[in-house]
């Protein structure tokens, strides 16, 4: 019998129904809750830092104590039906403000949050007043302003960040993007980690950076244990007054569990899940509340599941119920984004990832009954978070593959699929040991990291690639601008070959990347000196052992991921120049640039340029330009190293920033007018892949994904009709198998009925929870901006 299918003992239908009802009630409560903004973290953090006596303490200790105060003072709650407890914010579904990071710019929107159409966030007048009171204190103290000492550079960086024409640096809001070492947490507990910290601390003198960092770790360990005990007390008090006998018993169990974890190592599945969730909350409160990814839960939880089952403590059904409860809890944590950030990172999503399946550290198929439970929970819940990923290895069993394929063919949109062979290769060639590479999980959207060992800042920055071409054709200026924001290159009138165009493009790219890296390194240094993260660090292998914070490079593996946004637009624009100007000689480059400066107002010109073949149709002579763009990006990035001693690596995903970059970029030679959205991730320009999925895959596979260490996002879209029935399922399976065999790295399958999307656009109330894939993650359709909705509709109608 396959390992994948667990030995399910017969459960009575009544019990099954009871569990299902609880899970559905929990889900309903979370989906019905109006998302809101919680002021508590901001207020407690500010109070701590306003206290003059604290300012003399080492910065690591400050961070640890501020976090401790948040964990000990914030409101706590246990909601009806809950088995796994812990509330991220004071609202059922809520987000926090981080005034010392990006909170001040976010608060510029404070009066808009509750009224805005996209992702409204509830915030009362009183809460607004509370938040406004803390702004003056942070006005000149937040992180981005600490990056540069020179006031002119400070202003330049701030303006740059606000406009986001060339790149968007996310590290100014903190770093995060980790798959914490939860295995260690649930094995030895915070007391075990604290003990390790104490042992290392003995090696260092007081007042050394190491000693101070480890002091921070100790404070955080104690705080996390105390956080658990707060829930234990609450559960106990609630149990006393609980009239329902069953619920009373549950509350007493919760009290018992929280009394033990996260302080001690977990002894049951429920304790393990509880320990992880409390840590999950705390990490999201420490620094950037983004992409804190539990990762390979089916692996590190399996021993607990197995033992519980063997000891007869837990049934398969109960395990599933607890995992569903945990999964729902993750959806309570949301980010607070300003309108601008919503454009860049659309949807109320903060990148919490669960990855299942694949191979273990020895390279063997490690799918187990928990893998199956997670996939079922994912499919039955279909909530915006967490983001589910499945690893596919050449040794993966057919039951596992079939289950995933069938789920996808029916249109669940999840899980996204990852090719173990390619990713493990990619990671080892970028410095990972084979065993650590095999132990990868995705974090955030699609970025592979080693579980508990990488500090990979995978979303450090997103880079606008097409704007580089705009400047290359206009001597380093954006069209219509007098200011030179790039470097001076040849005017178009003097370019006589594609080699000239390439030279200008490469010069502008080098200039812009150097500028971005300069800003990024300044912000890295600011994070290091002003916002160390002892909690994040103690859950990354290497930091406690060395006594070095992850912001300083303490983790075993260090990287910074920079996204190359819209390579297909850039490649297509280059090919259009080659074809129109140098091959077919329809016009001079000077004339073409003239048309672009006039925003392609002549419709014939626009239509002509649009009609030139595009990336995604399996035409080598066209695709080679997108390949060129990606390779240039990788080459130029590889010249730099981050301040943590890690490489800058390229990613090909764009969240929703391709829409924002499109808005601020001028007309381009593939027939795109100013302001139109760019292509997402590795995808072709919207609607331009006309030869179907096989041609699209062949095109995409021309990009060597083994060089894209920060991951790719490849959307494969089908209309519901195509994948109907057994023929459709088989076709999907063949498509995915072939894509992976030919070296594809990642794929997510969207099966969409365009009619439903159009109905959802026109009657949002009728489809409150329609889940769609955006970019490496899912979002409720109604959470998207009108432009993004149109894009998703466009994507779905012109698939095949």
């Amino acid at each position, binding site marked *: 019998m396959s390992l994948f299918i667990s030995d399910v003992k017969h459960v009575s239908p009544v019990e099954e129904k009871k569990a299902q009802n609880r899970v559905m009630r929990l889900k309903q409560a979370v989906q019905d809750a109006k998302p809101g903004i919680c002021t508590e973290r901001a207020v407690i953090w500010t109070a701590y830092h306003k206290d003059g006596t604290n300012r003399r303490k080492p910065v690591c200790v400050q961070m640890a104590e501020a976090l401790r105060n948040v964990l000990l003072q914030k409101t706590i709650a246990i909601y009806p039906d809950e088995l796994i407890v812990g509330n991220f914010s004071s609202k059922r579904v809520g987000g926090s403000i981080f005034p010392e990071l990006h909170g001040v710019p976010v608060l510029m929107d404070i009066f808009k949050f509750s009224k805005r159409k996209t992702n409204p966030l509830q915030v009362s007048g009183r809460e607004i007043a509370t938040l406004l009171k803390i702004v003056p204190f942070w006005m000149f103290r937040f992180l981005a302003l600490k990056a540069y000492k020179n006031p002119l550079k400070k202003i330049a960086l701030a303006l740059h960040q606000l406009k986001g024409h060339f790149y968007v640096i996310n590290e100014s809001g903190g770093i995060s993007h980790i798959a914490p070492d939860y295995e260690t947490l649930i094995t030895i507990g915070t007391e075990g980690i604290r003990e390790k910290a104490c042992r290392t601390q003995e090696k260092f003198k007081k007042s050394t950076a190491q000693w101070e960092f480890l002091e921070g770790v100790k404070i955080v360990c104690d705080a996390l244990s105390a956080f658990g005990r707060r829930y234990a007390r609450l559960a106990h008090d609630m149990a006393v007054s609980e009239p329902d006998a069953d619920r009373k018993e549950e509350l007493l169990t919760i009290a018992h569990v929280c009394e033990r974890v996260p302080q001690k190592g977990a002894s049951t599945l429920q304790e393990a899940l509880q320990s992880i969730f409390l840590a999950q909350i705390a990490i999201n409160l420490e620094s950037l509340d983004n992409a804190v990814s539990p990762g390979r839960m089916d692996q590190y939880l399996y021993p607990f599941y197995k033992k519980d089952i063997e000891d007869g403590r837990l049934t398969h059904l109960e395990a599933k119920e607890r995992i569903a409860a945990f999964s729902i809890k993750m959806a309570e944590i949301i980010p607070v984004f300003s309108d601008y950030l919503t454009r860049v990172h659309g949807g109320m999503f903060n990148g919490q990832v669960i990855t299942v399946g694949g191979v273990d550290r020895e390279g063997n198929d490690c799918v187990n009954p928990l893998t199956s439970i997670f996939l079922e929970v994912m499919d039955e819940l279909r909530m915006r978070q967490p983001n589910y990923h499945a690893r596919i290895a050449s040794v993966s069993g057919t039951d596992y593959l079939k289950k995933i394929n069938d789920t996808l063919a029916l249109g669940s949109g999840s899980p996204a699929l990852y090719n173990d062979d390619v990713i493990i290769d990619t990671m080892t060639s970028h410095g990972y040991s084979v065993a650590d590479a095999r132990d990868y999980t995705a974090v955030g959207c699609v970025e592979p990291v080693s579980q508990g060992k990488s500090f990979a800042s995978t979303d450090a920055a997103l880079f606008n690639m097409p704007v580089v071409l705009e400047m290359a054709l206009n001597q380093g200026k954006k069209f219509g601008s007098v200011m030179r924001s790039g470097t001076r290159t040849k005017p178009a009138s003097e370019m006589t070959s594609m080699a000239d165009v390439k030279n200008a493009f490469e010069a502008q790219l080098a200039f812009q990347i150097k500028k971005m890296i300069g800003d990024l390194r300044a912000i890295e240094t600011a994070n290091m000196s002003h916002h160390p993260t002892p909690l994040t660090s103690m859950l990354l292998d290497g930091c406690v052992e060395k006594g070095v914070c992850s912001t300083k490079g303490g983790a075993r593996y260090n990287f910074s991921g920079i996204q190359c946004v819209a390579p297909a637009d850039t490649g297509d624009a280059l090919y259009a120049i080659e074809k129109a100007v140098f091959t077919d000689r329809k016009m001079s480059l000077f004339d073409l640039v003239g048309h672009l400066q006039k925003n392609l107002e002549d*419709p*014939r010109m626009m*239509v*002509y340029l649009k*009609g030139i073949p595009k990336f995604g149709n*399996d035409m080598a002579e066209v695709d080679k330009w997108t390949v060129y763009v990606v390779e240039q990006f990788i080459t130029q990035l590889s010249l730099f190293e981050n301040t943590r001693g890690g490489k800058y690596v390229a990613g090909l995903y764009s969240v929703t920033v391709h829409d924002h970059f499109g808005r601020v970029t001028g007309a381009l030679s593939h027939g795109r007018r100013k302001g139109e959205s760019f292509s997402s991730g590795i995808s072709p320009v919207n609607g331009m892949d006309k*030869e*179907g*999925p*096989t*041609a699209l895959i*062949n095109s995409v596979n021309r990009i060597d994904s083994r060089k894209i260490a920060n991951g790719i996002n490849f959307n494969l879209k089908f209309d519901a009709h*195509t994948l109907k029935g057994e*023929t*459709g399922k*088989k*076709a999907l399976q*063949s*498509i995915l*198998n*072939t894509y992976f*065999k*030919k070296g594809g790295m990642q794929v997510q399958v969207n099966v969409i009925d365009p009619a439903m999307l159009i109905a959802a656009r026109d009657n949002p109330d009728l489809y409150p929870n329609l889940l769609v894939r955006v970019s490496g993650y899912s979002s409720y359709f109604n959470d998207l901006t009108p432009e993004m909705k149109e894009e998703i509709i466009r994507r779905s109608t012109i698939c*095949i």
Partner: protein
Amino acid sequence: MNGNKGQPAIIFDIQRFSLHDGPGIRTTVFLKGCPLSCAWCQNPESISRDPEMAFYKESCLGCFECKLVCPKNAIMDSEEKRVRHEVCDACGKCANVCVSRGLRRIGERWGREKLIQTLLKDEAFFEESGGGITFSGGEPMLQHHFLYDVLPYLKEKGLHINIETSGMFRWERMERMLPFFDLIYFDLKHMDRSLHKTYTGVDNRLILENFLKLSRSFENLQARMPVIPGINDDVENIMKTAQYLIHANSRTIHLLPYHPLGESKLLRIHSSLRALNINPHQPEDLERIEGLFKKEGIDVVIYQ
């Protein structure tokens, strides 16, 4: 034009990721030209053997660059029609200058090498899915010289090859190619000789004869039937078709339900066909027809 060895084929479309023209993922090659002109034809642009111009008025920008380059003075100013087909020789100069693809040439010449190269692009997908190549049309057998020329190369690559035929071919031409085919989809449109002629322009004697011969000499012969409301869906015709299949020792039929999508193409080209203006079958009609076949012991697969 398409007569002799080494001559190019006239192809009006190549469709990758076809899921309904045989097993697995396939690339379907649509060869131009058909001896039949069925009243319900889904691809009326496939009937004429020669390239022809089509006008997509919704794409037209109204710039009339086409008029400037046409050597035959075949461009009209009318909103609805642009090409005077009587004088047009489909040289395609107008399509070359038409940036919006309002004018397109239907039917391009494809040499053997280029076609093979294109078909092999999806080889990995064929292999994984058990798919391959399907030759469709039009009537692919009209370009038998080209097929005979290209098939050995495809076979050598181990590709699964299917042909979709109207059955209107000279037997010797098919016979010599049988070793290359893995599957033959054969359309049976009407059992009545004169009605067949009325609706398709040719009588069915040769077609039925060829079907019988194939059923004896070729293993994977699959009958298909476009079911057209009011034309061939009556009980009598269904029963006759079923009996004929039993006579030919064929036990399954694929039914292709009528839909009017092809008729929208009629306005774009020069065609003697007219829209049928009939409603497609409802699912229960199709079930009824399926029932009739089943009663006679014929298995039915209904497309879509």
